[in-house]
């Protein structure tokens, strides 16, 4: 009996794969045949991230390393340009950054030659920037972690920092 059980045990030990499927969730915009003009958005509310075919980043027309992207995105969203955001800690009031988190949009465009690894890294850093802002606000308002909040409170925090990432269709930016 035990022998048979051992045999089966070894079979399942060998065949089992323990990898849990996980990844970054994103939502695609619906397909539209006719070209729709984008609504007018002020230049300062857009945080432009360009990635070229050599996996280099151009953020707000400046060269940047991937390590700095998270901080830059946080500063941009948390800028509180018009003073209407009472929970923003950034309070840089920079005239070239967003007026408040609700209006802040991150625009991402990559080259067709950009590697998938870099693309995921950029997506990850941008998501991390928002997650850190939300976590921070949850700690200040409720004193608990964002993931431990109730549904309502979580939605409130989420709406305080809505994640707006717009992806343009890739172009050949060249070098």
């Amino acid at each position, binding site marked *: 009996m035990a022998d048979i059980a051992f045999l089966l045990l070894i079979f399942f030990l060998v065949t089992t*794969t*323990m990898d849990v499927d996980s990844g970054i969730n994103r939502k695609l915009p*619906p397909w539209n045949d006719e070209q729709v003009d984008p609504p007018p958005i002020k230049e300062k509310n857009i945080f432009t991230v360009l990635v070229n075919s050599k996996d280099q980043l151009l953020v707000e027309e400046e060269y940047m390393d991937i390590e700095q992207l998270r901080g830059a995105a946080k500063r941009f969203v948390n800028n509180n340009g018009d003073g209407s955001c009472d929970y923003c800690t950034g309070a840089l009031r920079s005239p070239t950054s967003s007026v408040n988190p609700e209006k802040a949009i991150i625009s991402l465009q990559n080259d067709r*030659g950009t590697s998938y690894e870099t693309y995921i890294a950029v997506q990850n850093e941008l998501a991390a920037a928002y997650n850190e802002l939300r976590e921070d606000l949850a700690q200040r308002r409720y004193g608990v972690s964002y993931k431990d909040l109730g549904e309502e409170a979580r939605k409130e925090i989420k709406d305080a920092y809505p994640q707006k990432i717009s992806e343009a269709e*890739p172009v050949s930016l060249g070098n």
Partner: protein
Amino acid sequence: MAKFKKKTGGGAPGISTASLPDIVFMLLFFFMVTTVMREVTLKVENKKPKATEIKKLERKSLVTYIYVGKPKAQYIAQVGSEPRIQLNDAFARVKDVQNHVITAREEINEAERPLMTVSIKADSEVKMGLISDIKQELRKANTLKLNYSTRKGEVYGDKG
């Protein structure tokens, strides 16, 4: 009194193995329950990129997978070494993606169709051109929930 004699030691008694089958059965059931049989044989390289902000994919029955990567060594002679798409067990072209996703959606019960997720399992060396083409196909098929499959780990460990 003589009756209270100190027991003469015969060494430690052997460990009883009577419970061994029970333990083995317990382990057996554990592995039987947790095991997931691989449904497809990977024909492409699949070294997923790392990320930290990841979410677990739930409801496996609502997930469709698309594998992207360079063909494995034994297939290079047939399909070349450029990154290819793999759907189920076969190599596919970009235009096949739409059909594949629509077929997968038909199999899902109607109430749950909007929850369907496509998981892109791409190799980290794949270029974004191919991924973007897939994304356009998914948009045309109106399957908008997407998951970029990644491993857990710091992003800029091995990068400059």
